[in-house]
């Protein structure tokens, strides 16, 4: 946890829906029903600016649905929310993204038949060549294209995908696609990133450095809201944790308090009896080695599948 974020959140009560000193995102009474089931029913939630907030909860808790609603990919039955003081209810997804709130998807959406580099370039903002008329006059967009390419190369390098820049995104492994999607989201310098299970399927050898990137983002002032199942990771990098169960926000607090909360253990661990919430060591040696072996095996299987 970063010191700044810790001070900012120090006085915040550990109750669901607690008010934050400087919220970037505030949502009220957001309800989404699918037929008979209520997937999301969140009374009030605030996300503190410049922090890493983890959204956890058992499968089917409504985390992805909440992401879809907030980012304009789905319409709620009722509810309203503001991002940086601006109401974003009913605003289409593209405009939400332009406003600075960029998301990734639980099921990755790498653009398979485009190269890694093309994927990255597509993430950039303010490319005049994306207008039909200006596209016909390359001098109007070449300079910007160079800047975009340089930025993409720098990000790809950071995400260990530089070597793959000319490969089709569809030829990447599942984990690499997750990385690509995240790197692509960063091309537009978002104010807030919403990551839906960013680590699922990522090679454990890379998770450490990825955690570093997420913390680096926060340290540069980007707000991060992410859904994650790996409790070690949540504990390791988040400044704040919000817990959802059956569509509702059931608990909030620092990682330490939340994971000791009986309501959370009930709601969450009900589904994950074997999940270890207590261990502070992110990945101890033997676990790391075992995971690495599994990942290597998976990568090999993936390569064979490609052939």
């Amino acid at each position: 946890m970063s010191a700044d974020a810790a001070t900012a959140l120090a006085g915040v009560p550990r109750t669901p829906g607690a008010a934050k000193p400087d919220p970037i995102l505030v949502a009220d009474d957001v309800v989404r029903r699918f037929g008979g089931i209520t997937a999301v029913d969140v009374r009030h939630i605030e996300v503190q600016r410049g922090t890493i907030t983890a959204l956890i909860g058992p499968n089917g808790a409504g985390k992805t649905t909440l992401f879809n609603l907030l980012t304009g990919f789905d319409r709620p039955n009722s509810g309203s929310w503001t991002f940086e003081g601006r109401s974003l209810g009913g605003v289409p997804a593209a405009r939400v993204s332009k406003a600075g709130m960029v998301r990734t998807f639980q099921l990755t959406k790498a653009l398979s038949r485009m190269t890694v580099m093309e994927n990255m370039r597509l993430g950039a903002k303010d490319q005049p060549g994306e207008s039909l008329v200006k596209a016909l006059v390359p001098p109007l967009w070449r300079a910007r294209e160079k800047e975009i390419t340089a930025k993409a190369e720098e990000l790809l390098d950071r995400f260990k995908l530089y070597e793959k820049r000319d490969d089709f995104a569809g030829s990447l492994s599942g984990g690499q696609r997750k990385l690509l999607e995240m790197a692509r989201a960063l091309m537009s310098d978002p104010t807030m990133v919403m990551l839906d299970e960013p680590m699922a399927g990522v090679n454990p050898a890379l998770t450490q450095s990825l955690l570093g990137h997420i913390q680096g983002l926060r340290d540069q002032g980007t707000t991060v809201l992410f859904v994650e199942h790996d409790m070690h990771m949540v504990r390791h990098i988040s400044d704040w944790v919000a817990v959802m169960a059956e569509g509702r926000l059931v608990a909030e607090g620092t990682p330490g308090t939340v994971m000791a909360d009986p309501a959370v253990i009930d709601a969450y661990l009900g589904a994950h009896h074997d999940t270890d919430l207590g261990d502070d060591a992110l990945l101890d040696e033997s676990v790391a080695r075992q995971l690495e072996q599994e990942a290597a095996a998976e990568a090999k299987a993936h390569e064979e599948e490609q052939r």
Partner: protein
Amino acid sequence: MDFERILTTVAGELFAPTTAAYALAAIGLNIHFGLTGLLNFGQAGFMLLGAYGFAVSTIAGFPIWAALLVAVACSTVFALVLGIPTLKLRGDYLAIVTIAAAEIVRIVGRSTALTDVTGASSGLRGDSYKETFHSLSPFGDGSSTIGPFTYSNSFSNSWWLRVVAWVVVALACLLVWRLMRSPWGRVLKGIREDEDAVRSLGKNVYAYKMQALVLGGVIGSIAGILYVLPRAVQPDSMGRPMTFWVWTILLLGGAATVFGPVLGSMLFWSVLMLIRVVGRDVIPSSVMSTAQIEQFGWIVVGVTLMLLVIFRPQGILGDKKELAINVR
């Protein structure tokens, strides 16, 4: 068998105005399908609308540039009308709506209520709208022979029309080439792969799809004008089969390539001609009549399309590597 005559007839198809018109229509469809992934099954509707727009306004006394503008305006409005309700929905809706809308254009065009305007089912005679185009020709009257080919200089199925048609096709290829390699083309390609991903990156997917639909449709309408300049406007010859052939041409040459539609059209029409002339010479009329040989040619087209989609879905010029990526 007269090899020279066969060869000449077949080679003549390679640069015939009809071949150019179909190539241009397929270039328009390529912007829809190859670049953006839009399923337009009504390209013939755009072509017919362009032909009507041009012919009707020329007959009404418009100069050629105004008649062209009318054709472009008609197809733009048509694209907007088709796109506004469907482009926000899943791709299949556009497919269904375009098939139906193209049929509506044809049926309205041939209805007796419009006899004074469109000539109903008998259509518009070529002579009634060709004059403005002919009069622009610098080639004068008479006819010329280049190698084995003899055509009139300026009139109807002429050298003049060939020059104009292929220049237009070349310009359209240049346009597609430029756009495909631009950031605009990149957004379209992204939309073809996954709309939601592109949306999450802040692009107005609906607006891009609309631009592609209008642009491809306008190119289709100009193809329709080229198609009717050497003949008459016949609504019934510009129905579903025409759309189907444009698709065959695009898939044959290779979708999402610059020259695929051109190569596809040349191959399509010359092979079809080859089957016809060889068939007429070789097959005794007791086995197959001339009309049946014609039918046989179309059967070959259908079978070719099936084989193509099964064995070489990327077409002749398509990138095999790109298609080998299974979309997960």
